[in-house]
């Protein structure tokens, strides 16, 4: 039947009039991606796609420089131009866009954090994700397939329920599933009572899920570039120029660039870049590892996380299982971790999913995560005027990319934090007003 449809449609596709019509629609839509553009592109054997963003050469002076071309830096630049109508913005990236944590994470998004401050910020971010593809006119493949956080012992159950009730009070969707409920929702989990890790229940956030990490970086880069943001790749910031305690510019491998305001969004390298401006951070950078299996047919249609045994996994559209581990214990910038960490995670995973026992791991890799003592981020001002910091997202900053960009743009533009990131200041480590999210964030995700 499909071949019949194909036969009847194909000649029309090849028809010149149709092609002209498509070209017409495409022109009318501007640079927007659309079905018409896609059909036209396929008609041209995909030879005429324009690059998603322009590679700029640095100007002498900018109003805003963002150091770090990961998701957070790119989103910040995009919202500076879209929400705050700023122009004259540059994003400076030492490698390639999204080559840091943004391109290495297991892409889980959710907002079931314990404290009000975190819950509001992460849920704001999740809401932005819900409309991100439309906003950016770029398919970020957001899939709200549901996230389970399993409980294996009494203390897990109490912690999970406490978080669940806090979430409900904050208007964040969250449900409790008992053992049978878990079995029904995700039948391949081993819920037998004599399992090594018995499943006593689980929280479920149905609005949680996954998004395509590269697409998030590329979508923001494309939209920012279209709005006139200069995206400068393969350019490392090597020093920050400060005069009378005010930032005046940065030194880079492509020369000096002046700026009125500078934002640091370099994740694992945060301490390294802060040192250039003369201050320290309460950050420890650890390796965090993840891996994918060989691709198989659809078997897992939700995200499963287990804080107690450091298992979190989902299945990609290509069919691979994506799994992540806990952090390696030592600080490390080598983008590589120790094998025993993978071994521990996989053995726990096999207990929960015995049917995966004969699958093979195809690739493993590591990123560098900027962990904070209270497992919450730092987004705000620094001891240097005009210099702002966005870091400490640690093992869980992919889910916060849109929200983080939004509030960081606000902070940089107004020289004052947004309501949503006020509590996440650097000062909280002096005042003691920590936001302890180890329960929600202890497992890497």
């Amino acid at each position, binding site marked *: 039947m499909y071949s019949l449809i194909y036969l009847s449609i194909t000649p029309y596709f090849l028809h010149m009039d149709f092609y002209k019509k498509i070209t017409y629609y495409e022109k009318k839509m501007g640079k927007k991606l659309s079905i018409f553009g896609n059909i036209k592109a396929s008609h041209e054997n995909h030879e005429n796609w324009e690059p998603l963003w322009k590679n700029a050469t640095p100007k002498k002076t900018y109003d805003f420089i963002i150091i770090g071309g990961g998701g957070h830096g790119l989103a910040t630049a995009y919202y500076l131009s879209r929400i705050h109508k700023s122009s004259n913005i540059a994003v400076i990236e030492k490698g390639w866009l999204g080559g840091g944590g943004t391109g290495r994470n297991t892409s889980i998004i959710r907002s079931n954090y314990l404290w009000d401050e975190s819950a509001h910020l992460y849920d704001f971010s999740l809401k932005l994700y819900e409309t991100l593809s439309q906003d950016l006119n770029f398919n970020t493949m957001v899939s709200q397939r549901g996230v389970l956080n399993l409980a294996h012992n009494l203390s897990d159950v109490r912690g999970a329920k406490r978080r669940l009730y806090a979430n409900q009070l904050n208007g964040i969707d969250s449900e409790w599933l008992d053992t049978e409920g878990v079995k029904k929702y995700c039948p391949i989990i081993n819920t037998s009572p004599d399992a090594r890790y018995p499943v006593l229940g689980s929280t479920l956030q149905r609005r949680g899920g996954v998004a395509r990490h590269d697409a998030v970086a590329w979508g923001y880069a494309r939209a920012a570039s279209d709005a006139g943001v200069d995206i400068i790749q393969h350019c490392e910031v090597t020093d920050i120029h400060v005069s009378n305690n005010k930032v005046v510019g940065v030194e880079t491998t492509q020369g000096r660039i002046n700026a009125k305001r500078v934002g640091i969004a370099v994740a694992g390298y945060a301490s390294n870049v802060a040192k250039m401006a003369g201050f*320290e951070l*309460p950050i420890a950078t650890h390796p965090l590892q993840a891996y994918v299996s060989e691709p198989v047919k659809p078997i897992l249609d939700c995200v499963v996380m287990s804080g107690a045994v450091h298992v979190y996994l989902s299945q990609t559209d290509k069919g691979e299982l994506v799994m992540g581990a806990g952090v390696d*214990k*030592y*600080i*490390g910038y080598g983008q590589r971790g*120790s094998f025993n960490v993978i071994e521990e995670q996989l053995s726990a995973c096999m207990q929960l999913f015995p049917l995966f026992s004969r699958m093979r791991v195809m690739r493993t890799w590591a990123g560098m995560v900027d962990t904070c*003592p209270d497992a919450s981020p730092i987004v705000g001002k620094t001891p240097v005027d005009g210099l702002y910091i966005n870091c400490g997202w640690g093992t869980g900053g992919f889910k916060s990319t849109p929200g983080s960009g939004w509030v960081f743009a606000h902070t940089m533009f107004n020289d004052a934090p947004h309501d949503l990131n006020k509590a996440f200041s650097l000062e909280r480590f*002096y005042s003691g007003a920590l936001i302890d999210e180890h329960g929600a964030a202890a497992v890497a995700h």
Partner: protein
Amino acid sequence: MLIIKCPYCGDREETEFSYGGENKKRPADPYSLSDKEWAEYLFFKKNTVGWHNELWNHSHGCRRWFSIERHTVTNEIKQSTPSQLSMEENI
């Protein structure tokens, strides 16, 4: 997996050890510190890219503290010294 030299037991696998982070000098009189100084001791870190002086505990071995110089990019380990911490306070 790192192979770490315990100054008392010799080369052992990483899984026998727990990590103590940056080797910081303890304040002689904590009560005399301001909130800022205390926070700096407690939370703030060098988090160095490169050679890093750090504490380890041979928790599944002799259970003693010691410090090593480790390169945080290459994981090369240069030297291993018994920690003042264990000698003075017998932790």
